[in-house]
């Protein structure tokens, strides 16, 4: 039953759109008719209306756009948005209208300016930074693996699979000697 009804509705909408050059935007169950301009204009206006209703945030609500909210202010703003789109105003003009009154709070897609630049490019910058660090670390370890003797001096952890048992013994000796007192030597330690 529901399917049949929605099919009938869909066909009516199609007939409407192609027959009378009228475009419809259905937002939150309400139908918004665009019939003032040419067929193409009406279509793009309907699209713009839908896009802005979804992109503008209801100033009274914490996290709902104009399309979703039933707050009185959202209804008023939807009406205002509808009449401005019908008049053929562009997206920039309408967004300016809203921002001048309600502040940048209403933008779910904030404008790119010096205040929001970190918001827009911060994640990418952090990702690039992380990749750079990763690459540097990997390259360093590769270099260390390629020349074990140098690596022992620089970083004995990364290269310890590549050293012989004799070398390991000597390292252990040296480390033990140095661990109690940086200047004392092994024989000294035994004497104490």
């Amino acid at each position, binding site marked *: 039953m529901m399917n049949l009804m929605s099919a009938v509705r869909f066909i009516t909408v199609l007939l409407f759109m192609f027959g009378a050059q009228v475009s419809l935007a259905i937002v939150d169950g309400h139908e918004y008719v665009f019939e003032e301009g040419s067929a193409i204009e009406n279509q793009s206006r309907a699209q713009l209306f839908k896009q802005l209703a979804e992109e503008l945030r209801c*100033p*009274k609500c*914490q996290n709902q756009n104009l399309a979703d909210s039933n*707050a*009185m*202010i959202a209804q*008023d*703003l939807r009406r*205002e948005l509808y009449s401005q789109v019908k008049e053929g105003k562009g997206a920039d003009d309408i967004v300016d209208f809203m*921002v*001048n*009154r*309600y*502040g*940048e*709070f209403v933008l779910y897609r904030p404008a790119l300016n010096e205040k929001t630049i970190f918001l827009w490019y911060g994640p990418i910058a952090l990702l690039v930074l992380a990749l750079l660090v990763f690459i540097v670390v990997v390259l*360093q370890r590769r270099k260390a693996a390629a020349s074990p003797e140098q690596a022992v001096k620089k*970083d004995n952890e990364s290269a310890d699979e590549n050293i012989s048992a004799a070398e390991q013994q000597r390292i252990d000796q040296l480390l033990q000697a140095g661990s109690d007192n940086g200047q004392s030597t092994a024989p000294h330690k035994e004497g104490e």
Partner: protein
Amino acid sequence: MKRWTLFIPLVIFFLLGFFLWRGLYLNPKDVPSALVDKDFPEFSLPTLLSQETKTRDDLLGQVRLVNVWGTWCISCKVEHPFLVELAQQGISIVGINYKDDNDAAKRWLDDLGNPYVFSVDDENGDLSMDLGVTGAPETFILDANGVVRHKHQGPITKGNWGPLKTIYDGLVQEANLANGLKQEPNK
């Protein structure tokens, strides 16, 4: 690799942690008004009681509170007695009757007292939309040149009037000073 570089992730972690922690204590309902330090918008609306047309010019020349109210708004009822008290103290309050039923609004003023110099009837909410009003009550403090200097969301009460009074008094002083400067050459 130098040893101190190992601490960079820790430092980043603490920085992020600090900002997130600060974020816990911000009030998400605190939306900064886009209108502060801008001119009060132009309008031409009839008053509620006498149907006389008022414009922005009628607001000039004096520091004023502009209070957005409606009989449908419960917080406005809470706020109303205090507005009456402020009006008795000589503070000029202009009302914007926001999307209201005129008869109900008139009855409200009859029953509860009328603190307003005048109230304009903003039936469609056009002026309120230009003001960026999101609900009632909201109160704007205007300087003598008709510039919005402060916006207060929610009812004005004895409890929160203190800082608002400071702003109001500051603006009155500013206006007196400007008047003095203008009048002095004439004297």
